[in-house]
C-alpha cells in the first residue's frame, strides 16, 4: 500500500534517482511487496487481463493508424489495403477488431466478479465508480472504432446511436448536428470519430491508473469478502499474483488467438464489408455483440425518449449499486439467496443479448420487455430487499481460517494458495 515502501536502492545511481523521483519504490510497493489476499481465485486475474488488452489495443491501433485514412471515400479502401497489401496488416487488423471483443469479454467477467463477491461495497465505492467510467469510455471507444471502416454497419450503427441524442427535448437536434458536423453522418463525422477513437484509449489508461490507485488504498477484496486482518492473510504480489496473473493472461491469449486465427470474422457482421450507403439502410441492423443487451433495452420501450432513457439508465444504475445493496455480507459465497438471484441476473443479461440480435417483432418484443423489467428489478428491488430478508451463512473469522478449512476438507488446495 502507498507509504509502505520497503524498497532499498542499492547502486549509487539508484539511490541518486530514488531521491529525485521515487518511481521505482512506487512500483516496488505496488506490484512487488504489495500484500494480496492469499485466497484470490482466477476471477481475480481479469484485472491484469484487461490491462494487457488495453495495451494490445493501443499498440495495434497506433500501427493501424499509420495505414488507415479517415475519409468517407477512402476509409474502406484503406482498410482493404491494410488487409491485402500492408505487411502483416491482416494480423494487426484482426488483432485489433477481435481484441475489442476480447476486451469486452474480460470487462463483463470483471464486472460480474465484482457483483458476485461484493467488491463494490464499502470501502470500494469510488474504485467501483471509476470502473463504471472506464466501461463507459470503452463503449464510446469501441463504438467510434467500429465506424472507422465505413461499411454499412459502421454507417447505420453510427446513425442510430448518434440519433439517440435527438431524443433530448429542445436541444436534441442541435446536439446531433453538432456531433455530425453536418445534417447527416458524413465525412466530418468520420474524421472526428477517428480523432476521438485515437484519444479515448489514453483517457482510459488515465482512469485505469486512478482505478488501481483507489484499489491500492482500500486493498483488494477476495472470495470471502472478509477484510485482511493479519499478515497471515496475505502473500506478496510478486511472485504470487504476478505468476497467477501471467498464467491467466496466457490462457486468455490462447482464447483470443483462436478467434484471430480461426474465426476472425465470426464476431463481426458481413454487411460491414459493404461500403457505406447513406441512401439505403440494411434490412436488419445490429450493433456489435457487446452492445446487444443495451440495444434490446432501447427497443423494449415503445417510445423514443423512454427507450433512450432506459438504455442510459441500464448502465448508469451500476454507479448506485454500492448503496442499493443493503447486505452487510460482501461475498455471495455466504449469501445463499443472493447467489441464486445473481445467476438469474446473468441469465437475464444473456437473454437480453440474444433478443437484441433478433428482429423487433412479436414474441421478441414481449420477451424484451419482461427481461428489461427484470434487469432493473434486480438492482432496484432484489438487491435492497434480499439484503434485508436473507440470512447469510456464518462468515469465517479470517481469510486464513477460510483457506485452512477449505484445504482440510480436501479440495480447492490449488485455488487457495495464491
Amino acid at each position, binding site marked *: 500500500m502507498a507509504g509502505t515502501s520497503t524498497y532499498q536502492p542499492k547502486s549509487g545511481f539508484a539511490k541518486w534517482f530514488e531521491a529525485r523521483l521515487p518511481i521505482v519504490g512506487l512500483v516496488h510497493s505496488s506490484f512487488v511487496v504489495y500484500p494480496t489476499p492469499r485466497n484470490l481465485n482466477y476471477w481475480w486475474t481479469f484485472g491484469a487481463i484487461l490491462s494487457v488488452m488495453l495495451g494490445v489495443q493501443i499498440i495495434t491501433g497506433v500501427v493501424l493508424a499509420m495505414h488507415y485514412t479517415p475519409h468517407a471515400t477512402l476509409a474502406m479502401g484503406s482498410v482493404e489495403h491494410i488487409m491485402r497489401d500492408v505487411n502483416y496488416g491482416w494480423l494487426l487488423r484482426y488483432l485489433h477488431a477481435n481484441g475489442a471483443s476480447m476486451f469486452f469479454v474480460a470487462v463483463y467477467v470483471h464486472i460480474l466478479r465484482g457483483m458476485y463477491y461484493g467488491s463494490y461495497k464499502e470501502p470500494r465505492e469510488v474504485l467501483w465508480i471509476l470502473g463504471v467510467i472506464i466501461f463507459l469510455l470503452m463503449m464510446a471507444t469501441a463504438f467510434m472504432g467500429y465506424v472507422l471502416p465505413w461499411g454499412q454497419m459502421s454507417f447505420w450503427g453510427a*446513425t*442510430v446511436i448518434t*440519433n439517440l441524442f435527438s431524443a433530448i427535448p429542445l436541444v436534441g437536434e442541435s446536439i446531433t448536428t453538432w456531433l455530425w458536423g453536418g*445534417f447527416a453522418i458524413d465525412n466530418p463525422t468520420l474524421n472526428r470519430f477517428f480523432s476521438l477513437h485515437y484519444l479515448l484509449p489514453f483517457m482510459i489508461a488515465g482512469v485505469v491508473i486512478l482505478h488501481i490507485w483507489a484499489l491500492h488504498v482500500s486493498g483488494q477484496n477476495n472470495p470471502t469478502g472478509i477484510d485482511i486482518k493479519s499478515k497471515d492473510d496475505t502473500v506478496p504480489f510478486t511472485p504470487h499474483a504476478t505468476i497467477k496473473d501471467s498464467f491467466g493472461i496466457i490462457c486468455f491469449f490462447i482464447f483470443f488467438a483462436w478467434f484471430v486465427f480461426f474465426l476472425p470474422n465470426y464476431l463481426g457482421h458481413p454487411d460491414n464489408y459493404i461500403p457505406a450507403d447513406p*441512401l439505403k*439502410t*440494411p434490412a436488419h*441492423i445490429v450493433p456489435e455483440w457487446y452492445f446487444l443487451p443495451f440495444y434490446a433495452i432501447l427497443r423494449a420501450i415503445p417510445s423514443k425518449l423512454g427507450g433512450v432513457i432506459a438504455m442510459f439508465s441500464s448502465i448508469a444504475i451500476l454507479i448506485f449499486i454500492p448503496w442499493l445493496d443493503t447486505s452487510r455480507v460482501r461475498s455471495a459465497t455466504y449469501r445463499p439467496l443472493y447467489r441464486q438471484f445473481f445467476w438469474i441476473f446473468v441469465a437475464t443479461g444473456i437473454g437480453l443479448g440474444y433478443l437484441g440480435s433478433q428482429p*423487433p417483432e412479436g414474441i421478441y418484443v414481449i420477451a424484451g420487455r419482461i427481461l428489461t423489467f427484470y434487469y432493473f428489478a434486480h438492482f432496484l428491488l432484489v438487491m435492497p430487499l434480499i439484503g434485508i430478508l436473507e440470512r447469510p451463512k456464518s462468515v469465517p473469522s479470517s481469510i486464513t481460517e477460510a483457506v485452512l478449512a477449505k484445504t482440510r476438507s480436501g479440495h480447492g488446495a490449488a485455488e487457495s494458495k495464491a
Partner: protein
Amino acid sequence: MTPGLPRAIGSKGSDLASTDSAHRAEPTRRDFLYIATGAAAAVGAVAVAWPLIDQMNPDAAALALATTDVDISTVAPGASVTVKWRGKPVFIRNRTPEEIEAAKAVPLADLPDQNSRNENAPTATADDSNRAAAGKENWLIMVGICTHLGCVPLGQHGPFGGWFCPCHGSAYDTAGRIRQGPAPENLHVPKYEFVSDTQIRIG
C-alpha cells in the same frame, strides 16, 4: 516566475491572516479584486471554450450545399426517386390516386402526430393536403429519414402501404405520417418549391 513564487505565496499567507478580522467587518478592496479577477477568468474560459466547441458545427462548405434541383419529368404515377440533399435522402413520390384516397380517408384523431411537419406549412395540421405539394396533391416530398433513430424507411412497405422502417419497426402511411412503432413524428417535409412543372428545388 520561479524566484517570485515563494514570495507571492508567503505574502498571500500573511495577507490572509492580517485581513481575517477585517473580513468579518466588511468586504475589502482585496475581496472585490479577487471576485472581479475570478469573474474575468470565468468569462475568459468560456470565450476560449466556445471556438473549441463550435468548430464541430457544420462548416461553411457543408452549409453551402443548401439547395438541390431535381428534374421530376420522368417520375410516373406510382414511381418515386430518392435524391440526396445535405447528405440526407429525400423521397420524391408521384402518388397513385388510391394512395391519395387512402391518405385522405384517415381522420386526424387517428394520427399519433397531428402536426404537418411540413416546413412549407409549419403550423398546419397533418391532413393530407398539408403534407402533399400545394395544389399538386400527387407529389409527396419528404426527408427519407425515420424520425425514430434515423434509418431510411423502405417505400411501399408495411401495414399502411406507405413506408416501413426496418430498424425498429416504425410504419408510415401513404402521406408519410407515423402510424405505428417507436418513431414520434411524421416524416419531415423539407422546404422546396416547384421551379417549373417538371423541376423542383429542395432547400
